[in-house]
Each structure stands twice: as structure tokens, then as C-alpha cells.
């Protein structure tokens, strides 16, 4: 499709279809609820007419015909030539679904779409051309089969929802294909085109090779403001050359005045001296004027820049209604299928939310709403029996609260019986009966978010497989939010989601580790604490501190990140800077060099060529224009826990605090034999060195990364990582490239010695060297005396 003003024409068409499709859905549902109200009809006609026009531009005759006949029907209804009965609404909704599919497919898929839908559309056109039927049964012979979409299918694969409405019609000629994604305008472009087997054989696969031009809808006013500010920014920028010219002129005036003054002083020409001084005073005044001008330009530039920044960030915001537009239809279809009566209300459609948050929210919302209809609300009979109105109430509410987006989904259905949950917990052996009996309601409801946990007695098409709420919880966590459930048996349930308003900007605490900046999203950390070094306590040699009556173990960030030694000497500093991460039960403290403060950071994706970078989620540019890395706290915690159990990470030990305190050189002795370790440690300690020990290569490597050593003494034969591998691994890291290494081994063959030296050792000794002075001599040769 030809480009149009820089945009792909089909992309524009898709946007228009989505927009008008939403209007059609909304209006038709209102019309269905109140057929006497003809107010929505005008907007419906406009929408159908616009789709017709747009389809004509694209050359989609099939869509033109369908939209034209839908428009004719609407005109007849408006002119009261016909009555808008439920059958006609169904037909119009079916037509809307057909047309809105065009908003979700790629241009390359158009031929397949035409082939797959020609029969259905022609049948629908025939039905729309026929006069409206008085009875509901008669029109069934001409309507095509309609499938209600499973909006969550792509996100929550196990939750299959087949036709959510009854099959309205069995067409005389079965359609070649039945398109599933009949989800109205809210469906994203990620929704795959689902066709039956028959069609999929003929249809082209979704054209992955087709380069899709991403377009983003931006509010026109917002764009106007951005253009105005960008223009102003350019104007402000043009003032700088003027300032530069003025300063250059003053510089030459100053030079002239100085030369004149020096010359006048030499000549003792008092008149010229006075004149020169007057010129200097004039230049001073001019300089002051320039400084004021410059100050104004700076201030304006900063103001314009800040406003522009906020406008750009604001342009990412979309109304919450964007994600809810398809929900009334979905609820209506699903309730109808399940024989339930539901009044669905949405509040806060205009609440502004970042488009990325919205897109991530779509699947969880769909799931929770479906769950509410399927399990939450009762059928009319049950409700009447329970003393409730036969129509259930379901409310979706969004608002900004405490700097977060709060989304609530509340139903007045049967609620969740905590005792049933308790029974399931015991049945599924998630807890012992004894512990389960002590769980309170809030704790029990948390189990509903576990994978595979469901209290539904039977699996339905909609839910009950225990798949879904765990995905909801996971998705919400991934975008930095929380979800909780409140429920009263017999009165209903409420899901409460607290989410960031935007993913584009995060509030983060920035820290320095090894001289480099890192940012921890505030929402992902528990606390930042400056701990008095004197208050640290040792538990099994590892340092901890007390926080809220909990012992928090410490780990050095530079060790985890594999970056250069901390620039802060813990001993020299009386304060240890700690970022507390993790949950209440399992916290850990990450020791960083310095806290830099809090900042709003505009999140940038890391270059995909870097692949998954451990602990890092994204990047940003700090106030000084330097790249700063944003931590993936979840990943960090997983790696810390894994590292602690596998020995790749060590808790901060007492020696770390003593580090460098003596001014003596430090030696790391690595040997799996405690006897040899102790012999070497004592020999070196007697010489005045500070000595640390490790039990194998892995342990030694970890200690080296965490500390600052002047020499490594290592054995060769060790479990997990032998000495040769250890030395080779060290030499691959630039920071250890020049660390003196002495291998001390029982192996004394020439080839063993050669292997050690080839690996990168500076000296190779046998353990017999302990008997003479060669061990000590080699150490002093390599690093000199113990005291620096």
C-alpha cells in the first residue's frame, strides 16, 4: 500500500476501522438496551459511512458493500421504516465484527480475509437487505455463524472459550472459514488471525516479513503543544549565536581597553588612563547586561525543555476507556451464553494511563471479568433464591490513587467461601491441615493466585482450570503492580489492582557501584538504609543488621555485578549504604558505594543485541547525560538466592570490614585441604600478611571478586573448579589480569608446571616448598614485604 504523508495507508485504514468499530459496538449495545432511543443512530450511521469510505479508498469492495447495507439499515431505523429488534442488532453486531477484523490484520492477509469471509458477508448483506423480522426465530436462517472472541487466548493459552454466544445461524452454505477474533475494537494488533483448518491451508501465513510501520495515535492538542514547544525551543536556541557574538565583541573591547590602559600607564598619560578605566566600566555594564540576558535564555530554555518533556511523556497516555471499549460487548455475549443477567458499569474511562500499561492490562482484565461472569455472579434463579435482584451488577472502576492507577473489579455475586479454599489447600497438599487451619481469610485468598489452583467444582469453557489468576498476578507483578482479592461469601468479590500509571517514567533511587550509576525502581525496593558499621552483627561469619526486628544479611553489589572493586572502603566509612530488597520473609541487603538520590528516569529498552543482561531490565539517561542501568530486582533476587545456595555469591563477611584497615597486603589462599590451607595461612600470617582462605576455585573466585587482594595462592586439584581452570578464568577478566598468582601443588611434573604457567600463574611451587624458604621467597618476590 502506498505511503501517505509518511504513513502507510493501510495502517491509517486500520486505525480508522478500529476507531469506528468501537463506535458501532457502543452504539449498537445502547440501541439494544433501549431501542426507542434513536440518538445513537446518527453516530452509528456516521461510523458505517466512514468505514464505507475508507474501504473504498483501500479498494475493499466486500467491506464497502457490507458497510453500505449496515448504513441502509440504520437509516431505515432512524426513519422508523423498520424497528430495531434484537435480530437486527445481532446482524449489525455481526457486521461490525466482520469489519473490525480488518483493523487487526496485516495488508498481506487481505486476500485471505476476502476468501474466508466472502460467503459470510454476502449472507449477512442478504440478511441486512431483508426487512426486519418480527419474530426472533425467523432471521436465523440467514445469519452467519458468529464466534465470540477469546480475548485472553493469546495471553492465557489454556483458557479456551469457544463460542460465547449461541450459534445464531447455520448458513445454508457453510463458510469456508470462521474467524475467531471477532473481538471488537479493543483487540490489539497482536491478536492473530485465527482461521479454520480449511482456510489456513489456503491463507497466507501472517506476513512476518512484511515490515510493519508502527503508528501511534496522539491527541491532536497534545501534538499541537509539542510542535509549539519544539518551535519555541528552536527559537531559544537561535539566541545563543547572538550571545556569542556579543561576548566576542566584549572580549576584543576588553583587550583594547587593557592595551590602552597598559600603554597609558607606561606613558603616565592620566587622561588616557581615565579614558581606559571608563571603557572598562562600560564593558562591565555591558557584561552585566549580557549575563542577565543569558540568564533569561537559560531559564526559558529550561522551561521549554521541561514542558516539551512532559508533553512527550503525556502523549503516551491514553484514556483507560481504550482498553475497556470491548468489555460491554464481551460481557453481554458471555452473560447471554451462560443465561445470566448482568448490568455492567465502567467508571473512570477518561483516566489517563500509559499505553504500555494499558496494553499489558488487557488480558488480565478480560480474564477477571470473564471469571466474574462465570463463577462470581449467579444465574437469575439463584439470585432470586438468595434474595437478590435477578440482574447481577459488575463494576469496573479506574482511578488515580496515591500516584498509582487503581483498578477495581467488583461483582455482587456469590463471593468466595474461605472454607472451600482451605479444603482445596489441604487437598492439594499446599499446606498441612494443621497450618491451613490457622490461615486467615486474606492468607487463604492468596492461594487463588497460585498456578493450578481453582475452587471451581467443574471446568467450564470459560474458566475453572485454575489457569488465569496466576497469570493475572504474574502480569501485574511484571509491570510493577500488585493485585489482591477481597470477598464476602454471598455478597460478592472485588479484585483490586494497583499499577504504575506509566512504564515510561519510573521513580528510582540511584546508587553508585564501582563508580557506575545504577537505578533501583522505588516500587521494587523495600528500603534504603544507612547502617552504622559498628552496629553490624556477625552470624556464622556473615554480617547482618537489624531492621524492624529482622536480621538482614548483606551482599556487596560490586561482587554481584562483577564490576571493579568498591570505591568505598567499608572500614574507612562508618556508614554502610544498604538497599534492602526482597519480601518481608526473605529480605536481603545490597551494599552499594553511595546513594545518589531519587530521580524520575525515562525508561529506555536496552539494545536487544546485548541479550538478557543479568540483573538489568533497562537503561535511562541521568541528569548529567550519562547512561544509567535500571535494575531488574526480581532477577537480582533470584540470582542472589541461587548464588548463595550454590556458592557463587557470599554474604558480606567480617573480613570485608577489616579490609585494608591494617595497611598490610592481603593474600587469598585457596586449597581444598584444611591442613594445607592452615599451613599456608599461618606461614603468611607470621610474615605479617592478612590472609583469607577459600575451599575451591568457585569459592576463591567469589572471594576475589568481592575483595581486594594482592596475591592469590592456589592449589590445582580441587572440586568444582580446579586451580588451572580458576587461573584461566581469572586471566580472562581484565581486573585480575595483573594479579600475582602462585600455584602450590603436589604435582611436580614438568607438564604440570607448564600447564600452570600457561594458565597464567606467575609462579609454580610444589608443596615441598613449605619445608624450605622457597615458598616464602616466592611470595615476597611476587608482592614484596607484608607492609606496603
Amino acid at each position, binding site marked *: 500500500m502506498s505511503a501517505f504523508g509518511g504513513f502507510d495507508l493501510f495502517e491509517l485504514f486500520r486505525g480508522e476501522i478500529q476507531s469506528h468499530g468501537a463506535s458501532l459496538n457502543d452504539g449498537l449495545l445502547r440501541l439494544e438496551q433501549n431501542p426507542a432511543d434513536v440518538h445513537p443512530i446518527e453516530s452509528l450511521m456516521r461510523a458505517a459511512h466512514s468505514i464505507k469510505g475508507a474501504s473504498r479508498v483501500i479498494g475493499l469492495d466486500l467491506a464497502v458493500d457490507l458497510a453500505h447495507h449496515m448504513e441502509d439499515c440504520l437509516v431505515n431505523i432512524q426513519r422508523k421504516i423498520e424497528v430495531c429488534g434484537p435480530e437486527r442488532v445481532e446482524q449489525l453486531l455481526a457486521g461490525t465484527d466482520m469489519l473490525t477484523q480488518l483493523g487487526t490484520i496485516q495488508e498481506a492477509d487481505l486476500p485471505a480475509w476476502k476468501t474466508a469471509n466472502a460467503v459470510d458477508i454476502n449472507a449477512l448483506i442478504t440478511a441486512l437487505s431483508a426487512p426486519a423480522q418480527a419474530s426472533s426465530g425467523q432471521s436465523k436462517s440467514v445469519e452467519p455463524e458468529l464466534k465470540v472472541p477469546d480475548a485472553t487466548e493469546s495471553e492465557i493459552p489454556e483458557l479456551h472459550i469457544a463460542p460465547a454466544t449461541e450459534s445464531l445461524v447455520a448458513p445454508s452454505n457453510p463458510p469456508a472459514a470462521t474467524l475467531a477474533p471477532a473481538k471488537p475494537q479493543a483487540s490489539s494488533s497482536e491478536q492473530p488471525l485465527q482461521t479454520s483448518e480449511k482456510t489456513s491451508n489456503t491463507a497466507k501465513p501472517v506476513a512476518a516479513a512484511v515490515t510493519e510501520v508502527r503508528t501511534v495515535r496522539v491527541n491532536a492538542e497534545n501534538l499541537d503543544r509539542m510542535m509549539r514547544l519544539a518551535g519555541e525551543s528552536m527559537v531559544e536556541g537561535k539566541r545563543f549565536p547572538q550571545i556569542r557574538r556579543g561576548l566576542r565583541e566584549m572580549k576584543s573591547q576588553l583587550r583594547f581597553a587593557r592595551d590602552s590602559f597598559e600603554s597609558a600607564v607606561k606613558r603616565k598619560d592620566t587622561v588616557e588612563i581615565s579614558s581606559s578605566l571608563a571603557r572598562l566600566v562600560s564593558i562591565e555594564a555591558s557584561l552585566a547586561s549580557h549575563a542577565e540576558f543569558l540568564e533569561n535564555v537559560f531559564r526559558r530554555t529550561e522551561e521549554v525543555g521541561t514542558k516539551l518533556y512532559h508533553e512527550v511523556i503525556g502523549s503516551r497516555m491514553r484514556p483507560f476507556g481504550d482498553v475497556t471499549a470491548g468489555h460491554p460487548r464481551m460481557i453481554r455475549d458471555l452473560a447471554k451464553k451462560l443465561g445470566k443477567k448482568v448490568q455492567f458499569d465502567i467508571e473512570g474511562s477518561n483516566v489517563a494511563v500509559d499505553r504500555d500499561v494499558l496494553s499489558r492490562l488487557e488480558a488480565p482484565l478480560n480474564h477477571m471479568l470473564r471469571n466474574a461472569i462465570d463463577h462470581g455472579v449467579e444465574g437469575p434463579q439463584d439470585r432470586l433464591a438468595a434474595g437478590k435482584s435477578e440482574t447481577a451488577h459488575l463494576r469496573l472502576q479506574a482511578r488515580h490513587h496515591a500516584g498509582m492507577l487503581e483498578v477495581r473489579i467488583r461483582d455482587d455475586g456469590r463471593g468466595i467461601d474461605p472454607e472451600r479454599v482451605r479444603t482445596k489447600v489441604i487437598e492439594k497438599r499446599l499446606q498441612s491441615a494443621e497450618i491451613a487451619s490457622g490461615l486467615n481469610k486474606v492468607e487463604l485468598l492468596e492461594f487463588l493466585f497460585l498456578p493450578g489452583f481453582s475452587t471451581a467444582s467443574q471446568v467450564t469453557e470459560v474458566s475453572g482450570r485454575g489457569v488465569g489468576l496466576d497469570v493475572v498476578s504474574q502480569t501485574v507483578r511484571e509491570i510493577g503492580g500488585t493485585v489482591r482479592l477481597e470477598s464476602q461469601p454471598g455478597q460478592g468479590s472485588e479484585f483490586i489492582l494497583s499499577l504504575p500509571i506509566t512504564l515510561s517514567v519510573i521513580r528510582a533511587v540511584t546508587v553508585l557501584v*564501582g563508580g*557506575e*550509576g545504577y537505578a533501583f525502581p522505588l516500587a521494587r525496593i523495600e528500603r534504603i538504609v544507612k547502617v552504622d558499621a559498628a552496629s553490624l552483627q556477625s552470624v556464622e561469619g556473615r554480617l547482618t543488621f537489624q531492621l524492624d526486628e529482622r536480621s538482614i544479611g548483606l551482599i556487596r553489589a560490586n561482587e*554481584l*555485578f*562483577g*564490576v571493579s572493586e568498591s570505591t568505598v572502603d567499608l572500614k574507612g566509612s562508618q556508614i554502610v549504604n544498604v538497599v534492602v530488597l526482597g519480601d518481608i520473609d526473605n529480605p536481603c541487603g545490597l551494599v552499594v558505594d553511595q546513594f545518589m538520590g531519587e530521580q524520575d528516569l525515562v525508561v*529506555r529498552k*536496552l*539494545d536487544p*543485541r*546485548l*541479550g538478557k*543482561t*543479568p*540483573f*538489568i531490565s533497562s*537503561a535511562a*539517561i541521568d541528569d548529567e*547525560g*550519562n*547512561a*544509567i*542501568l535500571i535494575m531488574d530486582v526480581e532477577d537480582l533476587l533470584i540470582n542472589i538466592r541461587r548464588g548463595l545456595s550454590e556458592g557463587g555469591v557470599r554474604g558480606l563477611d567480617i573480613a570485608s570490614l577489616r579490609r585494608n584497615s591494617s595497611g598490610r597486603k592481603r593474600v587469598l589462599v585457596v586449597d581444598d585441604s584444611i591442613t594445607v590451607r592452615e599451613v599456608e595461612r599461618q606461614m603468611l600470617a607470621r610474615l605479617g600478611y592478612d590472609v583469607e582462605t577459600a575451599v575451591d576455585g568457585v569459592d576463591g573466585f567469589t572471594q576475589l571478586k568481592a575483595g581486594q587482594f594482592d596475591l592469590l595462592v592456589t592449589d590445582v586439584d580441587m572440586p568444582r573448579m580446579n586451580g588451572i581452570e580458576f587461573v584461566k578464568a581469572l586471566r580472562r*577478566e*581484565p581486573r585480575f589480569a595483573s594479579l600475582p598468582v602462585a600455584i602450590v601443588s603436589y604435582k611436580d611434573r614438568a607438564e604440570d608446571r607448564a600447564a600452570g604457567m600457561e594458565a597464567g600463574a606467575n609462579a609454580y611451587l610444589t608443596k615441598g616448598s613449605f619445608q624450605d624458604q622457597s615458598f616464602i621467597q616466592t611470595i615476597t618476590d611476587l608482592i614484596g614485604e607484608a607492609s606496603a
Partner: protein
Amino acid sequence: MTNSPPDNLNEIKIGLTQLLARPIKPASLAFNTNALAQTREQSLREEDTILLFRIGGERFALPAKSVLNVFPITKVRKVPHRTRPPFRGLCCYEGAILLTGLLHVVLDMPVDKTANAKLRRMIVIGSEDASWAFEVDAVDAIRKVDPSQFRNAPSTIPKNAASCTNCIIPLDDGDAVLLDPSAIQSIMERSIQ
């Protein structure tokens, strides 16, 4: 299967040693160099505008159209667990966060510690969505050159550099080595895989 050594092994060894140790005549050197010189098709020869820059006291060139940007030296930060040279880290320019490499490592050139810090520049090559930045000691000029004058690179240059070197460009003020930007990118990208 075993091969018994020939009876005159010592004589052969001596002969070979003499052969290898003999001084090479300049004419032979030139002939052999020419014979072994790389003869691959130089697609970049079609380019006639180059950016000239210096690293480690030597002059290099890149096709001007492969260069996205040249800007003053900026801070490069490291990335945890991505420390394998020639990858260096990330730097920022005009709001973009760029992957940054060490071109002197790719070219197997020493760092010129005497280079004037004020003349150092960052060069960005590649495409908007797959670029690499690297530091050079100085950027000299943009020149129009005559592709018909390009010479093949000698085969004696180090392996990495050989795979990045396209040809030699003779210039009035001395030769420059024309580098292949896609080969540079490829080597740099290997360091982060």
C-alpha cells in the same frame, strides 16, 4: 601406521633452517606480498567519499555513508557481565544509548597514550537501530577518493584487522587503511553474544 625418520633427517633440518633463515630479497618480498595479498572483491570500492581518522598513530578510513555520527568524547559506562573486549559499554549521545566498542582492540592496535585528548572523537557506524560507537584518536577529514587507485591490503596484517581491512587508499599525505564497517560491527557483536 608408523613412519620411520629418514636417514638424512639432520641434513634436512639443517637445510630447512638455512632456507628459512636466509635474508629475503626486497624483490622476492614484493613479489610474494603481491601474490598473497587479499584479492576479495571490494564492494566498498564503489564508494568514493571517506572519513579519515587516526588510531594509535596510524591512519584509517571508513566509507562516509557508513558513518552515522561523529561527536566529542563522552563517558562510556560498563555493563555488568558484559566485559569481553572489544565490547566496552554504553555511551549516550543526542538522547540515544549506544553500544560502544574498542576499535583499537578489533584492529589489534596499541592505545596511543600520547594522542591529544582534545582531538579524540567518537564515531558511530551502522544503522539507526543497529549502530556501534567507538573512540578514535582524531578525525582528520572527509575526502573524495579515486577507487581505481586503491591497493590490496597486505596479507601480513593481524587476523582481526585483516578481516576488517578492505584495502589501502593512497593519499597525497600518506596511505590510509580503508576499513569494512560491517566487518567491524560483526566482530564487535561477537563480543556480546
